[in-house]
Structure formats: C-alpha cells, structure tokens
C-alpha cells in the first residue's frame, strides 16, 4: 500500500483510518477486560475513541458514496456539468483529508510532501470552482419565499432588503420611544 493523492487514494486512506481505529478500540477493550475491568467500564473508558471510530467509518462512507454515485451519474450528464461535479467531489475529498490530517498521518503512509501537494490542489480546486459558485446554488432553485433571506434573494438586492427589514422594527414606528421620557431623560438630567 502506497498513499495516492487522488480521490480514490483519499477514500482508501479514510477506510484504513476507520479500520485501524476499530481494531485499536477492540484491542484496548480486550486488554482492559483482561486486566480485570468490567466490559461496561472498559467501554466507557475508551468511548471518546469509539466515537472517533464511528465518525471515521462514516466519513469513509460519505466520501466513497459521493464519489461512486456521482461518477455513475456523470456518465449521463453533459460534459461541462460533469466536469464541475468532478471538481466538487475532489474538493470534498481533499477538504476532509486536510481536516483529518492527524488521523491520516497517524494511520496511513501519507507524507509531508503529499500534504503540501494536497494543499496546493485544494487551492487550485477553489480557483476552478469559483466561476460556477452562483450557478451551483442557483441550481437548488429555492424560491425567495422559502429562502426568506435579505442577503440571499435571487435578485441580489441585498442592501435594499436589509433596509426594508430594518424599517419593520417596531422601534422605528415612532420618532421618540416612550422610554426616553420615562427613564432616559430623568437620568440624563440627574433627577434619578
């Protein structure tokens, strides 16, 4: 086994991390039980590592499912769309590889030079996907009424909407709020 900086290589890396963590948890459980600890106490003692193993297993599944199912779907997509989808899959895999670098360094044969290349590839992917960012979210086709956001409406009238929403504040309904006469004015005039 040799580390590869490809999506398949990263998936394999996460699978190895998952396997090693599971195996390590079982070894720990066994040694604790052998040394007289109850099964339940042993489980509780290593539960942080168990959660971590569960998460790594899931990361391996999520990335590989994304990769495999998208690869199948891409066969029936137009070339420009398939290209962007391929970039998204790779971005996702590289992002999580960099996020879980500690695990990969501990359990796989990834090297410092591989990490440098991964970081560079990550930045390159961001650059490639950037022009399609708006198109990618437009494709979710969420109507403004459901999005309910002053910042995210389709027409991009961000500042106008922020101001329209601000004017709906009940504090803008009257020029002087009654708290001025009741509290602030007496306080400012030293009458309290």
């Amino acid at each position, binding site marked *: 086994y040799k580390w590869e900086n490809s999506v398949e290589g990263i998936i394999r890396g996460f699978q190895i991390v998952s396997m090693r963590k599971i195996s390590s948890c079982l070894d720990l459980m066994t040694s604790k039980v052998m040394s007289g600890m109850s099964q339940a106490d042993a489980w509780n003692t290593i539960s942080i590592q*168990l959660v971590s193993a569960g998460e790594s297993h899931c990361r391996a599944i999520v990335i590989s*499912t994304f990769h495999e199912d998208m690869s199948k779907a891409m066969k029936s997509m137009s070339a420009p769309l398939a290209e962007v989808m391929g970039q998204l899959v790779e971005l*996702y895999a590289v992002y999580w590889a960099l996020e879980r670098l500690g695990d990969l360094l501990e359990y796989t044969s990834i090297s410092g030079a591989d990490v440098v290349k991964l970081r560079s590839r990550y930045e390159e992917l961001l650059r490639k996907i950037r022009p399609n960012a*708006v198109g990618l979210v437009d494709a979710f086709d969420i109507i403004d009424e459901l999005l309910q956001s002053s910042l995210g409406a389709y027409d991009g009238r961000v500042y106008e909407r922020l101001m329209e929403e601000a004017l709906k504040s009940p504090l803008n309904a009257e020029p002087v709020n009654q708290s001025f006469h009741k509290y602030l004015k007496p306080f400012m005039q030293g009458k309290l």
Partner: protein
Amino acid sequence: VNKDLIKERAKCTFNVTELTYFLDGGKEKTFERKERERALLSKREELFGGTPDEYLSHKEKYENSMRKAVILFSLLRKIQEANNTDLTNYRNLLSGVLSASISQDGSPFGLHYIMFMPVFMSQADEEQQKKWLHRALNCSIIGSYAQTELGHGTFIRGLETTATYDPSTQEFVLHSPTLTSYKWWPGGLGNTVNYCIVIAQLYSKGECHGVHSFIVQVRDEDTHMPLPGIKVGEIGVKMGLNAVNNGFIGFDNVRIPRTNMLMKHAKILEDGTYVKSKNSKLIYGAMVFVRVVIVFDSVNYLAKAITVATRYSAVRRQSQLKEGEPERQILDYVTQQDKILTAIAGCFAMKMNARMLWDTFNVINDQLHQGNMERLGELHALACCLKAISTTDSSMFTERCRLACGGHGYMVSSNLPPTYALTTASCTYEGDNTVLLLQTARFLLKTWRQIDSGPLTPTVQYLKTVSAPGFS
C-alpha cells in the same frame, strides 16, 4: 437584478437547469416541486406577509405559526390525497414542503407528519388503522409522539411511565410515578395536538414486559380541554424551533381502552396474557425512516445557507486586493472560497448520501418484512452515523456560511441564525449524535470480531479489503 449576479450567471460554464433536474431526481420531479410551490404561492400574502416573527412575543409567535400551519397543511392535505399510497411521495412531501417550512422557527404540525404518522402506520394493527389512520391523514385528529422523559433520553429501557393492564375493565392505567417520568419535548404537544403516541413500560399480571406504544387521547376533540388526569403544557422558549410548540405531559392514573395499545406486533389479550412480537426488531423501521428524513432535512437547510452566503458573497464588495483597484467581490478572496465552496461540496455530498440511505432503507425494509434480519444491524448503524454526520456537518457549514456574511449574516433577516438554530437542534433530537456514533461503533466492533467468519455486509466490506495481509 444586481449587476454582479448577472455577470456571475453569465459566466457559469454549465446548464443550471440540467443540474436542478439532477438534484430533484428528474425533470418530472422538478415539475412536481414547482407545482407544490405554486400552490404555496397562491397563499403568498397569508403565508408570507405580516409582521416578521422575530418581533412577536412567544405566545403571538405560536398563534401566528398555527394560523400559517393551517393554511399550509390544508394545501399539503390536498396534495397528499392525490398521492397517499406511496412512501417516497410521503417522504418528498415531508422533505420538500415541511422542511422547507414557511416558518423560520419550525411548525407545530411537524411531529404529526414526521413521527406520529410513520410510527402509527408501522405499529398499529388493521383495526386500529381503520379507526384512526384516515382521521390522522386528513388531520381530523393531530398527534405527537412522546418517548423522551424529563429524566430519561435515549436509553428507553430506563423510561418510568407505566401502563398497567386491568383485566376487570380491559383498560390500561397510564401513570407518571415521578416528576422525572413526565414526557418532555414532543413537538406540538404543548397546545396543539389532541392525540399522542406514548411510550410506557407495560405491566400485566404483575409482570413488566418492557416498553410499548399506546395511542392516548390528550385533549377533548371539541373543547380542546386536557382530559381528566392529564397534565399537559408547553416547555418554554428554546434556542430555535420556537413555533414547534414542544410540550410536557404527565399522567395521573389515566385509563385508556386495551385496544389503544398499538398491537401490530406484540399484544395484550383480554385476560391480560402478553403475546410477544414475532420479531421485536420490526419497530426499528419507523425510527430509521425518521432518521432518513432528518438527513434529507439537513441537506435542505444547508442548501438554503449556501444559497444565501454565495449570492451575498457575489454582491458584497470589500477591500482592495491591489492598490488602485475597485473593491473586490468577497467571493474572490480565497478565505471566503474556503468557507463557501466547501459548504457547497458538503451539501452535494450529503444529498448523494441521503439518496443512498433512502435506497438502502427501502431494500432492507423489504427484507425485514420478509423475515430476513441479516442487514438490520447494518441499516441501523448506517442511519445512526449518517444522521450524526449530516446534522453535525450541516450545522458546522451553516455557521461557516454565517461567518462568511460578516455582521449582515448575524441579522435574523438573513435567515442564517434561524437556520443554524434548526441545524444545531437536529444534532440532539432523535438521538444525540454522540450516542448515535457509539451505537455505530458497537456495530463496527461486532463486525470486526467476526471479520474472518464470513462475508461482510456492503457498507463494511472495505474493512476486509484494507485489513488484508500486506495491505497496510
């Protein structure tokens, strides 16, 4: 339309509609969704007009959400009447209309569709379905699902509420023996529902038979007053989900007919004899279904957050990258791309995984009903960890989207804070994520112990490959 957004759309290299069809699952599905949205928009003013919720009191918020929910669910009822036989249609309705809820703070009818109905359909026998299902489907009765207690969460064997069978009257006596046994958190329970599925320890002939489900009338169908012996109310303000009307309920020796125990699987006969379920694991189907819906929900919430953050980042200009240049779109900064583009990728990844989980659920659910339990453990572990990771990631990426929008993203009108409140809530409800990952780990350790004793199920097959001699 803002000029920068026009430019962004002009330089897109792919056909956006093609991707929309893919995301919806085909051109027809897009048209169906559009049809549902058209129905919603026919009530635009009633649903989306008026004072924003954030300026209302807690009580007014509930009353307003109830007004809107009645309009929305009347539409949902009509749509469902046309498609009420298909589970996929039902899930689509839940994910499409309900989770893309008109309220930023959830809906008091949510639990009726997400929990009450699926649990009832999977646990009620034919007679019970005949009696209640039609009424539940058309919302003549509205239900909630009460499992969690004030002092007891995921560990359901620890629940304290009791249902003791009295053969002399053929009734169960429901009782909350302690304050900690009060049911706590069910959506809609506060002031909305009149029925509830209650999980309680079943006692008959002096013996405890473990937890079972009972359908209990909580309020009078006409006056809506709580029935005698029932103490019901709302639990108060939360971080988000304040229109969901989460409630508490306690029972003071409340009597319900024997036929109110959901008896598709286990039964109590008239004389109090307990008939065990042929397969106690069949009840897991509804739980897994709910987790599948949560994964789809997470995708929907995240899709909203990334749409907001991406469009804002194209419109917002800040600082000069090089001296003398005009202010740049913030989307041009790599740190901004790091926050947003990864969230977009995460949303697509989770969408594909939600579909995979749904397909796996359908395959294994069919096997379960044919008596094949082989992959139940795998399905349970998969649903647990995907629920945990999808909600954790959705919450984390939504927060990154909020941060990507600076101070404006902190405004409630951006819808990012309410969306974060919804996503982070999903990390704890229907199984706290830490507990769910521990359940996945239990399955993995069991699998690892048996790795040499035969073939592994598909989602753990990789363990064999990467542990082969000489591999790593």
